């Protein structure tokens, strides 16, 4: 045969439909490119325009405390959420009975459905006052640990409260992901362990946890991605200040990028708006990197399990 192969017959409906689908798919790429381009274009005036009062010492010293606050709050949230999520996933997958476990699964999923503004309201009006005495107690008794030091906030609107709220918010998705992975543990491994006379915990240690480790890591990364971008709960609960501070019980806390935008944007004018958009671009970049790492871990795991 020569290379002048005749084109296959194609029907109009097929051509139109396939192209529609193709453009819908490619529109995702175009949209994200547009998002990045427009945010970038709108950030530029923050650097070229007249100086902004809020950022008199330049963009980077403006954004730094927020970057710190964003990462710090999320890391606290994650530090609380990860062990809890593993515990919940284990409880549902290996401790509760089947029927009960399903109901429990729904209950945890419900947590994911609650809007963040409701978490914010609850965080500031219920959780913060509830935690406040404990913060005093922590400060009095464990104040020698630097993060618990300083003048305790009277309202409970502290970094630790925010961390706890964030932990509650990312818990459901993390628990759900980890639970799925745990449920995929090869039954054979579990039964082999039990047949050797292992207790439930020994079986989990031998079969479930090693199998689920990459899943736990990626769930944590996805939870981190969520926590980094969470806005309203932080904006409502935290009592912010433009500082970099590790203390988690005081009323001078580093704000997060997202919360700062939400608080400032409605009142902002001129190129202050552009400045805020520029900080949004920084947040976008941070979450992208975190999510990409998470996806990378997941895809590596997929290759792994595909090979078996």
């Amino acid at each position: 045969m020569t290379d002048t192969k005749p084109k296959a017959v194609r029907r109009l409906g097929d051509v139109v439909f396939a192209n529609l689908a193709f453009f819908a798919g490619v529109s995702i790429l175009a949209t994200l490119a547009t998002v990045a381009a427009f945010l970038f274009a709108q950030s530029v005036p923050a650097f070229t325009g007249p100086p902004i009062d809020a950022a008199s010492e330049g963009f980077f010293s403006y954004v730094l405390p927020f970057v710190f606050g964003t990462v710090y709050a999320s890391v606290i949230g994650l530090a609380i959420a990860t062990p809890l999520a593993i515990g919940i996933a284990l409880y549902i997958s290996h401790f509760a009975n089947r029927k009960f476990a399903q109901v429990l699964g729904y209950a945890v999923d419900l947590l994911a459905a609650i809007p963040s503004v409701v978490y914010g309201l609850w965080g500031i009006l219920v959780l913060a006052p509830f935690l406040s005495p404990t913060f005093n107690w922590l400060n009095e008794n464990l104040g020698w640990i630097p993060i618990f030091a300083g003048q305790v906030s009277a309202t409970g609107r502290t970094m630790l409260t925010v961390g706890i709220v964030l932990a509650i918010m990312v818990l459901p998705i993390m628990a759900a992901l980890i639970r799925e992975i745990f449920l995929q543990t090869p039954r054979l491994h579990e039964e082999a362990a039990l047949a050797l006379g292992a207790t439930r915990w020994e079986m989990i240690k031998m079969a479930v946890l090693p199998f689920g480790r990459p899943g736990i890591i990626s769930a944590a990364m996805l939870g981190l991605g969520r926590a980094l971008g969470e806005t309203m709960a932080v904006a409502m609960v935290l009592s912010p200040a433009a500082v970099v501070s590790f203390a988690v019980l005081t009323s001078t806390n580093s704000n997060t990028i997202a919360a700062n935008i939400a608080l400032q944007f409605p009142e902002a004018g001129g190129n202050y708006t552009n400045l805020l958009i520029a900080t949004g671009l920084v947040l976008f970049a941070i979450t992208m990197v975190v999510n990409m790492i998470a996806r990378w871990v997941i895809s590596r795991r997929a290759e792994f399990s595909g090979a078996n």
Partner: protein
Amino acid sequence: MSKRIELKSLDVYYKAFLAVEDVSMVIEPKAITAFIGPSGCGKSTLIRTLNRMHEVIPGARVEGQLLMDGEDVYGPDVDPVRVRRQVGMVFQRPNPFPTMSIKDNVLSGYKLNNSRMSKAEAEEITEKALVGANLWNEVKDRLEKPGSGLSGGQQQRLCIARAIAVEPDVILMDEPTSALDPISTAAIEDLAVELKEHFTVVIVTHNMQQASRISDMTAFFNIAGSGLPGKLIEYDKTEKVFSNPTEQQTEDYVSGRFG
């Protein structure tokens, strides 16, 4: 209505992998032709080239010539969709459309192609196809019920009804009974014999009794080893293939010495 199919040195590929090599044969109309051979020898692959279903798989292609009553099925201006409308196909596992009623399943060849028909016509076609598939008596009272509620054997006959409802020239069946119990299998075998009155019937089977019971012609395929292409070893009257084959390989296979 029933067409003669002529294969002329057909090579069938999946990407670079040559799955079936150099098959030439003539499939007679109004007869049952059985493809037999060990699994992996390319029976399914070859039967799927007859209605251009092979090319649905990405990277799959065919070289050589395939004529249906003298017309080149792989000709440059031939629309594969039109070919498939003339060639009905029945698969290994019954696959009625789960969202459709029994009646809609029978009419699916028309409905999915947006062809309009009157109610009377629709009813006539449904009844004719279901009668033709020996299913009418069992389902005539529940035509509006979902097809997935039927037993496996009934589902397979529903799929045959669906295939013959569009009045094709050729019926292809790829191991249509391998997922069925013996009673349903017998029903399908009887049906196949009736179908050859009107259609060219090609059936893939790895059940040699089945081939010898119902087919007029038998083609035996074999592979020399994994990764090598399947080849047509012997093609002749069924009687001859089973009682007095020319090739040693065929003899070994039909006498159950391997495969």
